[in-house]
């Protein structure tokens, strides 16, 4: 462990503060799933990922990460800033004119840490597979991580990719699903049920593990365990249960905070629940 669980939880608390402040600052963006994935991003970037903040597109010898559900950009931007990819003061520019921190992540403005645009859903798993295939051709044994939203699994391209990866033994790939059970129009169970995702991915040939995405110890251990499963002929799927809005009581578990910004009063209430640990931007 590079950090104690307490240290990681403190980082996650700061990232959560950043998320609500960023979304409040421009009165737009997606706080719900960003908050739900704060623990995952912290565990990934501060504990699991073998990466350099001196960013190169290829990331030779480094683990790569791809975010398919690009709308949770606030959590990624905050994580990248605290990890050292760019100054945290830049978080204040989120979604504003001439910013590198676009509403959805993009390479277009050359923000360090981003390797492909995402936002239009369902494309990230294919891209991660491609990056993994290139690493294999380059005899680079590093890992490729991806995060997918659960709602976006309704996009068909995911299932093309899900079929491809096991058949082609893309086995340095660890895809996590943010299984929060919510999407814009309501619970996934009501909109278009995902049902037994474990059975579905296992039927396609994936090695599926389950983690609690809002328990720092569990997510760190889960991702480390996932790494031990690579190189054995199967891609890994981390089915990660999270709560949308985790950390802010009035947002927890509700799809209503998928894409809504808090007002001044709501911001104050959220910040009162989230200790400032690394200093606000």
């Amino acid at each position, binding site marked *: 462990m590079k950090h104690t669980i307490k240290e990681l939880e403190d980082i996650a608390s700061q990232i959560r503060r950043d998320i609500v402040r960023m979304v409040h600052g421009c009165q737009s963006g997606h706080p719900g799933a960003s908050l739900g994935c704060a623990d995952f991003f912290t565990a990934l970037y501060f504990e699991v990922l073998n990466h350099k903040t001196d960013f190169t597109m290829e990331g030779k010898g480094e683990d790569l990460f791809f975010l398919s559900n690009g709308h949770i950009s606030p959590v990624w931007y905050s994580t990248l800033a605290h990890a050292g990819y760019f100054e945290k003061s830049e978080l204040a520019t989120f979604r504003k004119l001439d910013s590198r921190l676009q509403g959805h992540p993009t390479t277009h403005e050359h923000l360090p840490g981003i390797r492909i*645009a995402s*936002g239009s859903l369902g494309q990230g798993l294919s891209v991660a597979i491609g990056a993994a295939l290139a690493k294999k051709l380059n005899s680079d044994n590093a890992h490729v991580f991806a995060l997918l939203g659960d709602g976006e699994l309704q996009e068909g391209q995911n299932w093309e990719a899900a*079929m491809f990866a096991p058949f082609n033994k893309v086995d340095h790939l660890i895809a996590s699903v943010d299984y929060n059970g919510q999407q814009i129009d309501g619970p996934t169970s009501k909109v278009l049920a995902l049902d037994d995702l474990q059975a579905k991915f296992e039927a396609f040939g994936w090695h599926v593990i389950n983690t609690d995405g809002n328990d720092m110890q569990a997510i760190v251990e889960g991702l480390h365990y996932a790494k031990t499963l690579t190189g054995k002929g199967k891609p890994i799927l981390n089915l990660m249960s999270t709560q949308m809005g985790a950390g802010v009581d009035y947002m927890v578990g509700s799809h209503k905070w998928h894409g809504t910004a808090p007002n001044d009063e709501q911001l104050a209430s959220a910040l009162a629940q989230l200790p400032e640990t690394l200093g606000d931007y």
Partner: protein
Amino acid sequence: MKKYTYTEKKDTRSGFGAGLHEAGKKNENVVALCADLVGSLKMDAFIKDFPERFTQVGIAEANMIGIAAGMTIGGKIPFTGTFANFSTGRVYDQIRQSVAYSNKNVKICASHAGLTLGEDGATHQILEDIGLMKMLPGMVVINPCDYNQTKAATIAIAEYEGPVYLRFGRPVIPVFTDPDQKFEIGKAWMVNEGTDVTIIATGHMVWKAIEAGEKLAELGIDAEIINIHTIKPLDDEAILKSVKKTGCVVTCEEHNKFGGLGESVARLLTTELPTPQEFVATNDTFGESGTPDQLMSKYGLDAVNIVEAVQKVIGRKKA
């Protein structure tokens, strides 16, 4: 009229296959992907010599584009292969976000474009792909005219950094360009110098423009014929220089006149040098089943249609 002859007919897709094989030999980062159409795309030679650099994705074009985009991150130069319809319309958003907006070095190689796909009919005969692709910021759009030019273009795009759409076709057509040509992206080829009209043609229509030029010469009309193989970026300079001399233009393409080469030329001329123009192209229609020759005739894409368009546009020139 300069004399063009040919000794054999070949399909442009075979030019792609030969070019891909050559590009693969020159650069080990060249990789190929195909969505269950290896034979149609003539990828066999590449696959035989570089099996580890070929990825069969199955009938899953969206996944193919995404994988190709991801492979560029590791320094690979992916060439995706499927029919033009499935290379563009079917995967437009994947190309838009993961390739064009992300500025990935993917070469989208599209066979069986246009009416000359033939008997399979309108579901497979895309006549909108040039328009779709040229609208994407940063996308290079190339539609070569014969086997040799397609081979040279394939080799050239491997050496160019950035997204490219390469469009070619199914039928065998005359091979009339130089086998040793150097393909320059964005550079027009002067097929024939003339003074009375500028005929601008792309793809399969270039040979038809040559046939038309011969008929026009018999009628006493001296046609300048320009091959625009790169529709984007357009060779503005070559077009303006020619049109300044001739004062009228006919554009020829196996594509809908909405969104094609003709509109690109019209946009240029409207802003720089307003000039009478006629369009030899399909007219906002789908195709249908038939032989390539029957279809080109029925939809007005033959040499005779070019001759008629030239006569019309010359009549519109200011006295």
